[in-house]
């Protein structure tokens, strides 16, 4: 019996070493998400089952910028999520998709996703890893199929190498593709605006910015809560319904009439880059958005937010100062960060 055990153990060791011989342990460079000082903890660890590595990040970056993820090769993720626009679509109410089509909602900026529990304007997506399935397969976006994309990736030597670098078995499948994309998009962070620098004592607001900040705290902060500049809730801000789109927002997902016309509160970080505004891109300047809150809210809608029932009183001078404060939320470092640029 003892001999049998010894032989078994010995064999196990030999088998294990043969396995290691064939599959040398990978050299992965582990990365960490930055949790800026004073920020709340992310609601969940988006990298809990997807360890963030340089290798995974670089694979995700290549995928993000690759038009071949779309049916006709024309539409990459980056096509609608442009770095110079804080990863929104610059100056477009709706983005362009396959075969001259339009999306039906305004593309949001991509940053600080680790702090978002739900993605999309209606919160329909509950995990960063599965989000790309929507644009990838939507006929008015990238219009591809999962088997179609995987076939292209599996035939590409650069991807074969990158998947091997990032994942121990090197398999090119949907799970690895989605996890790699999540490593890239989840790493895009905005925490180096002038506002952040003021908070860290590295810069000071001008008088107008300071006054605008005061107005912001009094009139905007309950929904666009600092430091993320959103509380990630879903609210109806009283926009007159677009009769063509008839977009019910959050109710589409929950089926609950109380959620009718509610949309996710977007972050105001990089707000001067992500115009036009609202889920349908109907306002093309921050001033018009402020005017909506001052006088445009349709307060007759039953689900309009309680905080907006009396609209928001903001004087003309306060509006001017508020606009200068909003400019301090632009993150030059993020939009010029070479790590987020198209790879060579």
């Amino acid at each position: 019996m003892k001999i049998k055990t010894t032989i078994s153990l010995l064999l196990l060791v030999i088998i294990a070493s043969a396995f290691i011989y064939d599959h040398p342990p990978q050299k992965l460079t582990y990365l960490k998400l930055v949790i800026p000082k004073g920020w709340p903890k992310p609601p969940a660890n988006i990298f809990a089952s997807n360890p963030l590595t340089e290798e995974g990040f670089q694979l995700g970056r290549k995928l993000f910028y690759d038009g071949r993820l779309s049916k006709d090769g024309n539409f990459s993720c980056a096509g609608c999520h442009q770095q110079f626009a804080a990863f929104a679509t610059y100056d477009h109410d709706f983005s362009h998709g396959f075969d001259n089509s339009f999306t039906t909602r305004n593309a949001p900026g991509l940053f600080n996703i680790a702090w978002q529990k739900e993605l999309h304007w209606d919160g329909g997506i509950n995990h960063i890893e599965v989000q790309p399935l929507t644009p990838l397969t939507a006929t008015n976006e990238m219009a591809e199929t999962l088997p179609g994309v995987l076939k292209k990736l599996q035939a590409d030597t650069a991807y074969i190498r990158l998947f091997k670098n990032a994942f121990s078995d090197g398999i090119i499948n949907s799970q690895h593709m989605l996890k790699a994309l999540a490593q890239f998009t989840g790493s895009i962070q905005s925490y180096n605006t002038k506002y952040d620098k003021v908070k860290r004592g590295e810069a000071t607001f001008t008088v107008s910015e300071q006054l605008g900040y005061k107005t912001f705290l009094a009139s905007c902060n309950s929904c666009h809560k600092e430091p993320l500049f959103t509380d990630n809730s879903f609210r109806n801000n009283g926009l007159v319904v677009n009769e063509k789109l008839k977009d019910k927002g959050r109710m589409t997902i929950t089926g609950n009439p109380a959620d009718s016309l509610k949309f996710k509160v977007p972050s105001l970080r990089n707000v001067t880059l992500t115009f036009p505004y609202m889920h349908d891109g109907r306002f093309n300047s921050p001033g018009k958005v402020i005017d909506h809150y001052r006088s445009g809210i349709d307060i007759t809608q039953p689900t309009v937010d309680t905080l907006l029932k009396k609209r928001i009183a903001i004087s003309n001078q306060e509006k001017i100062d508020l606009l200068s404060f909003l400019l301090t939320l632009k993150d030059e470092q993020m939009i010029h960060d070479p790590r987020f640029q198209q790879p060579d």
Partner: protein
Amino acid sequence: MPAYLKNLFFIPGLFFVLTGIAQTNATIKISFINTINHQPVVLDSTSYTNCWNETFTISKLKYYISNIQLQTADKKVIREENSYHLIDEADTASKSFSFLVPSNKYTSLSFLIGVDSLKNVSGAQTGALDPLNGMFWTWNTGYIMFKMEGYSPQSVAVNNKIEYHIGGFSGANTALRKIELNFGSNEVLSKTQQPTEIIIQTDIGKIWNATHDLKITQTPVCTTPGALAAGIADNYSKAFEIIKIISQ
């Protein structure tokens, strides 16, 4: 010498080690037979009639079976590891699967029709849960637990389609259903090297009348979570029964 040849030498050793570990285990095989009006389902070609005298064909029939548990006579619960199976009528191999359990006397079997809520909120999965299998919603994250498509002249939907994509994993309208099936007097005495096959038959026609009366005329399509989806799930949850246990 190539590495794979070198590894070949260790296969007998591996076998030796594994049999040592597996000595107290036995194989349980579970097979599914989908039927309508007591006849095995044939996709596309056969026209069926439901209890409301509505006629239809079936072009797709797929559902998830997950979280399989067996209960022993002494009330121990044995769970299948990584228990996710997609039963696809179009794929014969998918309709039966085997796993190892400790040798024991078993009295009942339970499973979920669908994918448990945790896997619905945990990001990209692979294997049976790969979104590649066409059982994953991209507009409202979650698995389609049960999918049936076909045609009926009574359907008012475009091209007379029937389309039931049943899902939703949380709240009052969850489509998850736990099924418990007793072995009754046919207790499974599972012993070493003796595979036992449990054959489960589904009566797909139950979709229209097991608990709730549903007609193709009124509801040919259900593709969102909600009360209708939950009602259809109630109905098909009554469709599963053990028809045979084969012990060698």
